[in-house]
């Protein structure tokens, strides 16, 4: 038995208000205004099990699979999610400097160039079996490399010791 409320994606229309705020209208006419989406699996499955919460963070319901939404709704909720979850994808690592076990990275990401510090090189760089690399910087910001094998050769060489 489910105690959580799952709503069929086919039964709703999602509009984007401002920022990450959504307005969701159900087929039966019920309207959820000013609600926000949260991923329950932000790392392993970004499009499934999306929690809808109100402004006070109270759970309203769950959308199991975004892919079953109509195109427009999918686009709207994805935009909101992309704003909430800032996980820059690293395209290239230009330089790595090491200082007493902590690292400074200069990178090129899908959101522009950036530099950050990694404090614990062992725990803050995680290689998943798919070749995906999850990174957390000294300020707890997250980054990812979708597949390190697809990075330019020099970048691969630079990080190979930390994978």
């Amino acid at each position: 038995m489910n105690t959580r409320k799952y709503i069929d994606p086919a039964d709703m229309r999602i509009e984007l208000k401002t920022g990450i705020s959504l307005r969701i209208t159900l087929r039966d006419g019920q309207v959820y205004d000013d609600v926000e989406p949260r991923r329950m699996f932000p790392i392993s499955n970004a499009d499934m099990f999306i929690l809808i919460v109100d402004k006070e963070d109270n759970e309203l319901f769950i959308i199991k699979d975004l892919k079953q939404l109509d195109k427009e709704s999918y686009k709207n909720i994805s935009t909101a999610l992309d704003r909430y979850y800032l996980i820059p994808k690293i395209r290239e690592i230009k330089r790595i400097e090491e200082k007493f076990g902590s690292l400074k990275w200069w990178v090129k990401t899908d959101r522009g160039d950036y530099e950050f510090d990694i404090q614990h090189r062992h725990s803050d760089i995680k290689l998943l079996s798919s070749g995906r690399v999850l990174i957390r910087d000294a300020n707890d910001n997250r980054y990812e490399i979708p597949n390190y094998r697809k990075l330019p050769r020099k970048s691969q060489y630079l990080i190979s010791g930390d994978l």
Partner: protein
Amino acid sequence: MRNEVEAKLLVNKPLPEDIKKKLYESLRDGEELLFAISAELLMDGSYGNSTFGVTRSRIISVDPTFPSGVLTLDISRIKNAKVKRMYSNAVLCVETDEGVIETNRFTYSVTELFDAAANYINNVNSGMDPEEQLELIRERFTKRKLTCPKCGRRLSRRNPVCLKCADKKRFATRVFGYVKPYIPVLIFSLVLSSATTAATLIPPYLTKELVDNVIKNGDIAGLRKIVLLLLGIYAFQAGIGAVRNFTLRITGEKIVTNLRNEVYAKAQTLPLKYYDKTSTGSVMSRINGDTQNLQNFIIRISQDVIIQVFTMIGIMAIMFAMNWKLSILSLLPVPIVVYGSRVFSKHIRPFYRRLWKRRSRISSILADTLPGIRVVKAFTSEDRAVQHFEKCGEDLLNENIRAAKITSAFPAVVSFLVMCGGLVIWGLGGYWVINSPDRLTVGVLVSFISYTHMFYGPIQFFAGLSDTFQNALTSAERIFEILDAEPETDLGKGYKPESIKGRIEFRNVSFSYESGKKVLDNVSFVIEPGQSLGIVGATGSGKSTIVNLLMRFYDNYEGEILIDGIDIKDIDLKYYRSQIGYVLQEPMLFNDTIYRNIAYSKPDASVEEVIEAAVVANAHNFIKRLPDAYDTFLGERGVGLSGGEKQRISIARAVLKDPAILILDEATASVDSETENLIQQAIERMIQGRTSIMIAHRLSTLKKADKIIVVDDGKIIESGTHEELMSLEGKYYRFVQIQSLSDGMFTVRSVDKDEYSEIY
């Protein structure tokens, strides 16, 4: 004029020119910029230059994605400003009559500054003194600026230089430091080694004699002499070699023991923050494996390198004396080998890092699952545990295979080159022997070949050295990482107030373990000496965190915590903690006897005292009934006792310490009502006359507390006595109701927040 203003402006980092221009252009006449935060993230989520500035009357936000590039707003129009934390980023939301406006988007790197800015705006608007508020902002900014003057690393507090710089020597110097006390022994064994090495140089020469003179001339007496001489040399080598190996082994073990002790001692001083991020498994593998690794290297570098250099010089001298042309020929492959080993070491290094990481993952699994073996069995997941382990093992194996390809290929190539060198000498030397025997005799050729092979011994050694070196370097890095990590800051070292009366004050304390989530938000309360404070709140609301801060387990909080009016950060850390008795939420007992587990808090306590403490904690009665009574040996982490029994032992431990301040983080394990009564009694006896903080899940425990605070989501939402809070009919009242509903069998913990809000 503008430069002067700029010099005074508070910023987290220098603003880019174009931003600065925009910012100053939007100022009105006479309007002064107070502080500005450079945010590095634009509204559309891309990196770029954006800035948030505050003047006395307005906020000015510069972001190229705004239609005009600038957004200004009168502070007086803002009803509320707050930072909305998202994932790896946050926005500053200001609420006006027209709705909510997002003024800036930023990463977690500057979230705390925006938090401070939001506070500033709200406080100024609620009528607080703007100058005082600005002072708080200034503090925030300067705190951020605390960097080590030498390396620029951020300091957690006002240390003169960071620890790493204070004690940063070069790798070689540091390794040498561990070797230094053993130099006489090492020199002794070096002398022995030189002797054996010198001895190895003789046999080929004797071979030459044998071939060219003795055998050729049928000199039987000479033959006997040379054979005996060779026998003597071999015996000498074996004997001296054994002594040498023994000496080295002992020395190595001593060095590694010292190093291991030092790493372990250092690991004790590391702050909890370090352990939040680093798995104990990886710390364990450093203390165990890496120190060993380094030992091997130290021995190698301190002995073999010197020996090999000597051997090389010795052989070269003999070879050149025998025949310089052949000698030059045999040196031909050397440059290739030298160049090759440089390339090789560059490529092998990442492998050792990767190998290390995989090995430490395996240690982590061990450190994790073996102590948790009960859970593994309870959920019949033995097979899964094995599979997981095998997968990590396989990963390590694969990496090892990849590394092995390189590490085996390289020496093979070197050997091949050496052989080729030998062939050239055979070929050319043989040619010379056949054509002009007077220039080169068979004996010289044969012994020359022997020397050539011996000569390549050191070459191969140096070729392989970079491999060992890289491996050792990785281990050394890991070890020094611990030795260099900043220990808990203890600025008040040495300051020990005569007595601690126990007045505790939290002043606007905010704290987060990680930037993404604020765990305590502006917590303030006071406990007078001798009073008891109860803390109530749903699970995860921040109760234990309050205690963690009071214990100084984490010191990167905002606001102040005072004991008897003194900032706790200014008191000697060990002294301070020794004044507090803390019963942890998860009773942590050690693999030792019950007696020593209780006496842990006061090792020099008399037996009577320990028994008395057990009596007060209501533990004596069950202990005396155990066959081994106080000598009962507990398993790892206290295995062998029930939850309630463990709790009472940890209470006894705190009682024995007789502290001025007592903290009790009540375990949530449900116990039967009789045990509950026993524990209750123990607690009541224990808190007599002491300042005490009780985090209780059984609210009945708290009825007698002098004051109760209710924590919700990191904020104090209610405070007062039991009666006051009951008549308030707020959250506390509802907690009590739920608990009496569930007949006292369930604790607050078992009612999760959501269900709770569904009930009401």
